């Protein structure tokens, strides 16, 4: 199973800022290994963030997003102690869901 994400969420003046770090290799499909064979593409393709059952951000990544992707955004609403849930799925069908608590 994939490694956990690190999710930070903080509310200020009614706006919640979310910062996410995802653990993923984000292989481009163009790199060669030591033996000269091409390492197949392996990357997070979809990311969804929800708060109170509502989608607050939906993203699609290609392999040009950097290794261990970072994503930051802001949404209106959110209160201290509430959860922000983030899920990703990659091009091989591997996936991960984690949550962060709004500070």
């Amino acid at each position, binding site marked *: 199973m994939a490694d956990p994400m690190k999710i930070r969420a903080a509310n200020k003046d009614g706006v919640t800022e979310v910062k996410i770090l995802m653990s993923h290799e984000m292989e481009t499909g163009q790199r060669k290994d030591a033996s000269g064979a091409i390492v197949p593409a392996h990357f997070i393709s979809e990311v*969804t963030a929800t708060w109170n059952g509502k989608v607050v951000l939906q993203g699609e*990544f290609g392999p*040009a997003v950097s290794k261990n992707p970072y994503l930051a*955004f802001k949404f*209106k609403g959110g209160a201290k102690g509430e959860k922000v849930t983030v899920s990703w799925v990659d091009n091989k069908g591997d996936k991960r869901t984690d949550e962060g608590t709004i500070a």
Partner: protein
Amino acid sequence: MSMNEINARRDAMKKMGGMGFLGLLAAAGMITPQMALAAWNKGAFEAKTLADTLKALGAAGTPVESKDVVLNAPDIAENGAVVPVTVTSNLPHSQQVAILVEKNPNALAAQFMIPEGTEATITTRVKMGQTSDVFALVKSDGKFYIAKKEIKVTLGGCGG
């Protein structure tokens, strides 16, 4: 429901049959079925040229350059593997934000759907194979707007 439970439940559901990822989220009660219709835009991500990518994103023709689309990134990246980029749209009803790197093998790096209530400001990091123009594309009220910036990728350190 704890995260481990969600992950376990998803794994269990995977075994039961091929529900899509968003379908699983919908089943877990996280999103409504209508939202789960979105899918990875293969055509756009696999397009080679900037023009083809824009076409696949539904922004055929030349999107209007707009001062209300702000692409914040350094002029020089010490390493092309990680180039920080923030796109901000000050246009009303910005629904979609995309980041494109013209000289990458596939121009589209990432795109985001911005629901009502979410600010049209996204920060992420992209790879750049070489010095290139980088574009921020924003869809606002059904029309596409664009901002451009050249980012130089330099040789770093000992250069070896």
